[in-house]
Each structure stands twice: as C-alpha cells, then as structure tokens.
C-alpha cells in the first residue's frame, strides 16, 4: 500500500519536472520561429526588455461582432466600418486631421462648375489577391455603389474611364462629393466579398470566426507606407467584465472605447489615450409615435436632461456635450451655442408637458443596445431624469442584432439611446439622414425648413455658404428637439506598454497601420 503511494508520488514529481523542462526549452526558441520568411519594413526591435512580446502581432478587443456580410459597400454597423477601414480604401482616404488623402487615385481636379471630377489613378496599386487595380475594377466599384444606391451622392452621375483617367460627372454641383469616394474599390466581379473580403488597404483579411474573432495580416504589396505589425487579431468581448479580465491577463493588447470603470482597473501595463469617439449619443426619439410627435413633449424631455450628471456618473465628469447631430471633431460645422439651448430646467419641462396635454406625464420605453454599456448607462440616467418630470420610463435592453433589425431597420421603438457616426467626413453624412423620407431617417423626422436648408447646402457655391446652411440644419434639429442630444463620448484607448503609434481620427475608425512596437 505504502509502496504504491510512494511510487505514484514519484511518478507525479517526474511528470511535473518534465513539464517544467518542456517550458524552459520552448521559451528561447519562440522569437526565432516566425522569422523564416523575410519581412520587409518590419520595425527594428533591438530591445532587450524581458517583458516584451517578441512576435510582431497584437490582439485587439472589440465589443461586438461585425455585420454578417463583410461587403464594404453594404456594411451598416460602425464597428464593422471601424475595422474594415484597415482592409479597404477608396479613391481617397481620410486622414487623422480630417482631410482627404489620395489613395487609389493619385491626384484629381474639379471643374469650375463643381460638377466634373477628374482623377488620375495611381499605378501599381494591388489588391490583396495579387492582381493590379485596373480601370475596370474602379468603374465596377463605383457603378455598383451608384446603381445599388450604396452611395447616394453618386446618384445619376456619369462615370467614365479611359486609360488611367477617370471622370465623374455629377448632375448638380457638389463640392463635398470627394468625401464619398472613400467608398471601397473592390475587384470587379469578385463574388465572395461578403465572406472573404478583398481590398487594397494596408491589411488583408485572413479569417473570421463568427462571434469570436477576425484576423488581419499585413499586406506586403501595399502601395503606400506599409503597416508595422505582421498580424492583428480582433477578438470579440461582448461582456465588459470578460474584456477587463482579458486586458489584465494579457490576452488583449489594444482596446478602444473603454469605460471609465475598466480604465480604473488597469494598472501600469497600459497607457491610456484619451480622445473622442466621434459619434453623437442621444436619446433618439421616434417622431411617428404619440406623444413624441409633439415638439413640446420633445422639448420637455430636452429640458429634463442633465448632461453634467451623465458625465459625472458615467465618466468621472468627462464628455463633450453636443446639442445637435454634429460632434466637436467637425470643427467647421460644430455649433457650440446649441449645447445651451435647453438648460436643465425641470419646472419648464413640466410646464411644456402640461401645455402639450400631458400634465401627468406619459409612458415611454427607452430601448438600449445591451452590449454598449455607455448607452445602457446613459439610458438609465436619462430615464431617471425624465421621471423627475413625470414621464414613466422603462429601460429595455435588447441584443445588438435585435436593435439593428427592430429599432433601426424596423423602426419599432419609442426612444432609444445610441450613437451615430459619420460614414464620410462631411457634415452631410451626419445631417442628410434626417431629411424627409431618407432611407436612414429611422426617427421619422420631417421638417420642410430642414429639407430646404439641405437643398441650400447642396447648391452652395462656396464653402462659407455651405457651412452656414449646414449650421442652419443643426439649429433646426436642436430647436425642433428632434432628439435629446447628450454627448460625444470620451474615448479611452488602452494600449499595452511598448506599443505606440495609435492615431485618433475625426470619424469612427481604428487605424492599425501605424501601431507598432517601440
């Protein structure tokens, strides 16, 4: 009896020892293994810091899965655009400063009547599948966007190409049109775009596991400055607690859009960058349901809102107030004065409700996408503030997929807290959606002055007139209390120590091409 026990103990010990030996043997071998093939433009990494990771790849956490189709022309969710920004490029691409830089097109000119854009395509741009970008691909991509209605600005335009010269003739003057040409250039007649996307960006798509992860790899034939990292793996953490664990445990190297609660838990392993999320968070109201069709009711809700309390309770007092559908990064268009249009005033709010015929308030359901904790939190606080004026609010969390299908596409909601970003770097991208009958006008806002101001903006001959018209639209949205505008959220990005080069953009994208190990 005793003998067998000793024997088994010895065996266990032996096993443990061999395990340990195995670990020891593997460790030094690791950094050498991936360098079998030459890696051009790889960052020099002569550091001898023992804590450093030697493989040139990172893991990025994201809070939701991508759209079911990865086709860049049909994607809906901001989270998808944010990621695929690394894979696709248009004729032009946005820069961190808010300008447009040449991408697939090398240069362009605009005719004096602002209707004809002439581009010269860049030579030697390659798709991730190895083939060179031809005029056919460009024409295919643009006509697809035009004919399928993916890019509304291309409607009724004439797209012609010869040699390396592309001309786009618009039916009417549009000096903002260029920003729409960030729409992806994709290979002509490639059928698997939805599952295995192919573009021209600095990273190529490798694989995707639904609800789990997405893997990108550096595209070595990229025409411009090549990315530093060899490989980026995106892992989906719908649950912020799991994410916090993953960050602390070292499974995630970079995460954008952190909550303050998580930030406070991260230790010295991370540097925290602070920017803006570039979206407009608001309690979006459905104008087609009673009593939200009454402007006084909506204004009452605006007066009931106390933004500062939301900042204090959710982000340690940080946040960028917005008073209309425009966020501060759009310096030219952002109108700060609209933020103070509805100072928090419970009495006034009650009076407005009474005037509208609801002296005892009404019942309101605020639907919130449950995976976005900033929206759930803001929804809860807004609900409590609305209760103070007698509105009986229920906060209803729903899954993200349900939110997209029921609330956004089905328009079956009363109020919802979410954030809207700009798909292109134009004021139009923020404001056009609320014109009467627009396909993305999910709140059903309709105002003749607003539509007129939009027409004015489109017809504007110079920049100043256009900015004025857009500002007018913002003012109308604010005065009609189209939505209860809250804020542009502070964006905390956690970057593992040793990583550098993260850049904030004025639109909702996460550029991985400049991220590198120091």
């Amino acid at each position: 009896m005793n003998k067998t026990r000793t024997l088994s103990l010895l065996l266990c010990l032996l096993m443990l020892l061999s395990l340990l030996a195995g670990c020891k043997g593997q460790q030094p071998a690791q950094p050498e293994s991936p360098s079998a093939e030459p890696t051009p433009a790889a960052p020099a990494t002569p550091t001898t810091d023992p804590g450093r990771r030697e493989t040139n790849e990172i893991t990025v956490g994201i809070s939701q899965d991508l759209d079911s189709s990865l086709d860049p022309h049909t994607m809906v969710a901001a989270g998808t655009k944010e990621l695929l920004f690394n894979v696709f490029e248009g004729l032009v691409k946005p820069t961190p400063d808010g300008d447009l830089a040449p991408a697939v097109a090398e240069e362009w000119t605009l005719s004096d009547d602002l209707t004809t854009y002439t581009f010269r395509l860049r030579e030697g741009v390659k798709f991730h599948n190895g083939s060179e970008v031809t005029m056919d691909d460009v024409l295919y991509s643009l006509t697809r966007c035009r004919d399928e209605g993916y890019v509304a600005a291309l409607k009724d335009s004439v797209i012609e190409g010869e040699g390396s010269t592309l001309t786009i003739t618009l039916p009417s003057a549009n000096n903002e049109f260029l920003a729409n040409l960030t729409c992806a250039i994709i290979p002509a007649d490639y059928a698997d775009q939805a599952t295995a996307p192919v573009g021209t960006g600095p990273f190529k798509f490798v694989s995707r596991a639904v609800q789990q992860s997405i893997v990108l790899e550096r595209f070595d034939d990229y025409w411009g400055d090549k990315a530093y990292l060899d490989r980026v793996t995106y892992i989906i953490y719908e649950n912020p607690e799991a994410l916090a664990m993953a960050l602390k445990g070292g499974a995630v190297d970079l995460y954008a859009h952190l909550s303050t609660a998580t930030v406070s838990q991260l230790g010295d392993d991370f540097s925290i960058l602070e920017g803006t999320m570039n979206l407009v968070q608001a309690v979006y109201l459905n104008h087609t349901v009673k009593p939200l069709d009454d402007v006084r009711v909506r204004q009452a809700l605006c007066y009931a809102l106390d933004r500062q309390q939301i900042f204090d309770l959710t982000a340690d007092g940080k946040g960028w107030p917005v008073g209309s559908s425009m966020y501060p990064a759009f310096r030219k268009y952002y109108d700060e004065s609209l933020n103070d249009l509805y100072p928090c005033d419970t009495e006034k709010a009650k009076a407005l409700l009474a005037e509208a015929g609801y002296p005892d308030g009404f019942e309101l359901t605020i639907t919130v996408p449950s995976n976005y904790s900033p929206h759930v939190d803001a929804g809860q606080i807004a609900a409590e503030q609305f209760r103070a004026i007698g509105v009986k609010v229920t906060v209803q969390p729903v899954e993200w997929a349900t939110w997209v299908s029921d609330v956004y596409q089905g328009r079956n909601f009363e109020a919802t807290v979410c954030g809207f970003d700009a798909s292109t770097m134009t004021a139009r991208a923020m404001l056009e959606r609320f014109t009467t009958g627009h396909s993305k006008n999910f709140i059903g806002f309709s105002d003749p002055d607003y539509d007129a101001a939009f027409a004015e903006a489109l017809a504007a001959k110079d920049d100043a007139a256009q900015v004025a018209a857009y500002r007018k639209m913002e003012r109308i949205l604010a005065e009609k209390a189209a939505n209860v505008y809250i804020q542009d959220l502070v964006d905390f990005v956690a970057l593992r120590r040793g990583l550098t080069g993260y850049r904030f953009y004025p639109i909702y994208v996460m550029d991985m091409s400049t991220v590198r190990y120091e």
Partner: protein
Amino acid sequence: MKTRNYFLTFGCVITALMIAFILLGYFWTPCDPMKMDGSVRESAPTLAHLMGTDKFGRDILSRVMKGAGATFFVAFGTVLIGTAVGTLVGALTGYFGGWLDEVLMRFNDALTAFPGFLLALVLVSVLGPGRRHLLLALGIVFIPSYARIVRTEFERARSQNYVKSAQLMGASTARILFVHILPNIWPVLLSAITIGFNNAVLAEAAMSYLGIGVSPDEASLGYMLSDSQAYLATTPWYALGAGLVIVLLILGVGLIGEGLQRKDL
C-alpha cells in the same frame, strides 16, 4: 429521545427575518432606490448607506430590499402556478389514468424535453419583457416537475384501502382527490415546494443576471450581481448585498425543507 429539530427552527427564523425584510422594503426603504447621486459613487458602507452605493450612487441596501421583494414575488408566483397546475394535472392523470394520462403526460414530457431555462427564455421573448411575464414563463416551466411528482403519488394512492373505502361510501371524485388523497401526499408535495421555491429564486436571479425580463434601472438582485462584476476588485460590497440576500432566501427555505423531512423520520 427527542432531539430538537434545529433545521426547522433555523429555517423558520431565517425565512421569517427575510420576509420581514421584504415586507419592510415594500413600505419603507432607507433611501429612494432609484435616486442617483454623483457625490457618493461606489462608496463603501457608511452610516448613511449601510451597504454602500453602486456606480450611480444609488443606495445598495434600498435596492436590495426592493430587489428581494421582486425576486420573492416571482419565486412565490412561480411556485404557486407550478404547484396549482401541476397538482391538478398530476391528480387527474394519476387517479384516472387511461387516455387522459397519456395525452397530458406526453404533453408534459414535451415540456420537459426543452431545457427549462431555454423554454423560459423563449417564453419571455414571445410574451415581452416585464416581471409578470417572467413569472408566467417560469411558472409554466415549473409545472411538469410538480405534475410528475403528484401523479406518482396519486397513482399509488388509487389502489389503497382508504381510497377504495371512500369510493364505496359514494364520495364524489373531487372529494376523494382533494380531501382524501391530497392531505396524504402533503409531505411529499411540501418538500417539492421548498425545493421548487429555491430553484425559482435562482432562476429569477439567473434570468435577471442575463438581463432578460428586467429593466436595468429597476432594482433586481440578478442584474445587480451582473452589474457589480466590473467592480468586484474595487467595490466588493456592491456584489455582497445582492448575493447575501439570495443566499439567505435559499438557505432559509432550504432548511425548512430539510427540517420537514427529518421530522417525518
């Protein structure tokens, strides 16, 4: 020698205290459970906030009191629906047998075939959110287990002499079922009820933990637990309040159940 039944005593004391706690919460809470206060976010327990405050500065004790009431309400309702319908179905099928037994019990089997939790999820998403719907959904999920237990007991009782005597005396079927047989299977049913109650408390907490059927601003033990996860390292009392109440609710009723069983021996 008669030993004191400590299980029953302790169970009754804990349950009585919990019920008093819940009743108190129904009429009075130390603070408004919905009141947010930015100045005392995530504060540790103090005299003003005996269990501390949550991320919005709401008083955890008040929220736990309300939440315990809500959980108790759902658990009680669930057991009530489950027992009432389950006993009825079990009594009829067990006593009569035949085609009625076949039909009802196959239906019962069909219900059992779904994992209970999944079924409740489906029901809540069909019925829509709200505590009443959650109660109904859980109630339906709980019916089969009661029906099965009661059916077995009735089937056994059917052939026993006291039932036969009652039949000969011309007692009505309803009288035989509910006046003669039911009191005799009472001990079995009672322990099933205590176990069922505990399962219902856990089911409600689990559902609201997942955010199903409850609204996040409403005080609910499960949701508080899931909310507190992010703060476990910094403010552990956030989770402690809700967790403690769930433990005590279950412990109390569980001890009663255990005590009742020992009493019979």
